[in-house]
């Protein structure tokens, strides 16, 4: 590698030195995909996990894995509950992450409390797993406001529908923290289609140039609504894009919760200790349509969907945990009951009539309101007062 990498401050070089590997070996995702647990639930021997020197991933502690499984089950239940609430007309729309829950759970669990998560619109389960109240998360899809939670409470950016714009916000949050000498790591999520957006490029480049601790986490589910990845990118893999920015890229089985926790956990650690960005691409599948308004049968075969059922992240994790003796009937019953409680609370919350305050429309446009908005608020207030008198 040329002069750019020979900069003494360059975290890539520092990492390469400590691992005893070349920058190419460090940055390129040449080893294939990190997978620890097979679809059938068998733990692979280390030499078959896709790891290599400088890319070693120890098995996360078993208690962490068991509690992550519980979040996985809850996440699946929430996805299915929300899809039902949409069919019942209680929610306007819900982009389900059914099939991608392992990515969702791992993204939230790999971060420390002081870190930040920047999700997309499909990352509801990640936001919840980070600890945001599910009802607040869902208010955006219920249609009462364009966002339902305070980003500062759990350090979660607001769910974004314009693609990859939030990656730059993640970069900014990390930059501000770095300037103040804080060791905050930011994990920023996007999908495979989003990697075509200009902001994806600008965010990765800025993060690399300013040496910011940002983990870019791409959930590659194969489709951007209907357009397959082959029409989105000609790169060997999306993780290969990292090398162009001077950062390391890694690929991971997106339906293997164990591998995701290991890979993202290490990426977060490296980002924190080396103050460098990393790109992690998880290969997964959206089992349902893009949203309730989409018809996935127009662009993908049922055979393909069936193949992915066999790779399901929940059944895979369950099989492994049971095989290891970490999950017995009693624990399963407890976890199922916990998931049911979350779903019931969601149902109750969503079935309750929500009250909206029309005058709130004017309240948060500016910190210091303009006289023009004050006038318009009076107009609406008068209109509402007349309606009340008429009734």
């Amino acid at each position, binding site marked *: 590698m040329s002069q750019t990498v020979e900069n003494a401050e360059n975290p890539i070089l520092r990492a390469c030195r400590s691992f005893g590997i070349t920058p190419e070996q460090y940055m390129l995702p040449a080893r294939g995909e990190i997978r620890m647990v097979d679809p059938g639930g068998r733990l692979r021997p280390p030499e078959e996990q896709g790891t290599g020197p400088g890319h070693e991933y120890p098995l996360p502690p078993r208690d962490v894995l068991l509690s992550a499984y519980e979040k996985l089950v809850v996440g699946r239940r929430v996805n299915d509950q929300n899809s039902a609430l949409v069919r019942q007309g209680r929610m306007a729309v819900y982009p389900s992450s059914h099939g991608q829950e392992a990515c969702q759970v791992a993204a939230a669990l790999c971060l420390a409390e002081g870190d930040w998560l920047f999700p997309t619109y499909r990352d509801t389960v990640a936001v919840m797993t980070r600890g945001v109240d599910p009802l607040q998360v869902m208010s955006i899809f219920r249609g009462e406001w364009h966002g339902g939670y*305070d980003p500062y409470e759990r350090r979660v950016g607001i769910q974004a529908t314009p693609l990859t714009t939030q990656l730059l916000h993640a970069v900014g949050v990390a*930059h*501000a923290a770095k300037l103040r000498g804080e060791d905050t790591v930011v994990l920023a999520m996007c999908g495979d289609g989003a990697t075509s957006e200009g902001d994806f490029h*600008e*965010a990765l480049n*800025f993060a690399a140039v300013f040496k910011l601790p940002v983990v870019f986490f791409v959930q590659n589910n194969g489709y951007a609504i209907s357009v397959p990845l082959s029409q989105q990118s000609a790169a060997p893999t999306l993780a290969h894009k990292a090398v162009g920015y001077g950062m390391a890229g890694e690929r991971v089985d997106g339906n293997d919760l164990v591998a995701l926790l290991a890979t993202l956990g290490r990426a977060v650690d490296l980002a924190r200790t080396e103050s460098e960005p990393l790109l992690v691409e998880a290969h997964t599948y959206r089992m349902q349509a893009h949203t309730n308004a989409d018809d996935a049968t127009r662009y993908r075969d049922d055979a393909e969907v069936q193949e992915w059922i066999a790779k399901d992240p929940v059944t895979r994790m369950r099989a492994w945990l049971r095989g290891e003796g970490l999950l017995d009937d009693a624990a399963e019953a407890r976890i199922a009951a916990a998931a049911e409680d979350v779903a019931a609370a969601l149902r109750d919350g969503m079935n309750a009539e929500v009250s909206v305050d029309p005058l709130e429309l004017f309240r*948060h446009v500016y*910190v210091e309101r303009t*006289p*023009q908005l004050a006038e318009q608020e009076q107009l609406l207030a008068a209109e509402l007062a007349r309606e009340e008198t008429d009734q």
Partner: protein
Amino acid sequence: MSTLEAPAPAAEVPAQRPVTFAQALNCALADALAADDAVVVFGEDVGTLGGVFRITDGLTRRFGRTRCFDTPLAESGIAGMAVGMAMNRMRPVIEMQFDAFAYPAFEQIASHLAKMHNRTRGAVRLPVVVRIPYAGGIGGVEHHCDSSEAYYAHTPGLKVFTPATVEDAYLMLREAIDSDDPVVFFEPKKLYWSKAPVDLAELKERYEHRAPERREGRAVVARTGEDATILTYGPSVPTALAAAATAAAEGRSLEVVDLRSIVPFDDETVAASVRKTGRVVVVAEAPGFASVAAEIVARVQERCFHSLAAPVRRVTGFDIPYPAPKLEEHYLPSVDRILDAVDDLQWEDRP
């Protein structure tokens, strides 16, 4: 501030010596950086070079690379990173090198900078200033002279300021940086080299001890007059004042209102002037169709219809792409064109 970099002396300008508009902006940035550690300045070429117009000259030397720094050449990245930094308690002041080069940042500005406070029900404040050198009159090549203020003024959640005097260059930039709302700050390029005998130390003193009443969004009467009002802003203010001087020599007294802030808009000051004179010409450099000038006309007729002796006239740029240097004089609102419009204000009628 980086401890590795020795602080250079502040760019001191002796009292009452002519100060340029650019120097006043530079001083405002320096004073804001000194006043608040959360203020950071970044953009393309703003560091070592001091900006293509030298507005950030010396700031990196004085405050270090952590406070004023160059970014990769990507405007959406600059604006998007500013959003994130503001979310994390900084007060970024970003420079878009030229008006038309700010368009790649438009999504970040319109979809996020403008909306985040509202989307989070007030939880997130984004005190970001987007500085945009704008408008023509400098013989700029293509894509260097757009008057793009209407795009931003049309976007709820943004405030839009545009100073026209050396004093306002300082005061309004300080105000924009201290605002908890995002401000798009339009700097008329052709006024960068304009001068006025201003005491910057006194201005700083005045700004820091200003009265607590509503400060932003005030228009000023730049010249008082009795017969007609010219409503204008930014690069057209000096042209309007020149027109008023010429009209005075011809026996007609024109009042010139410098709007200063497009959002918020000072209906009060505008209406008071219009009700006094009964005749109005709106002058702005941007193409007139669906423009800020059009909005001003609408507001005036809604509020002052019974005080008007004549339809409100506009003198604006034509509805064409900004012309090449050899043609721009035909495009820009001129003294003659303003006076012709004034002549058309039905002087035989009484309101």
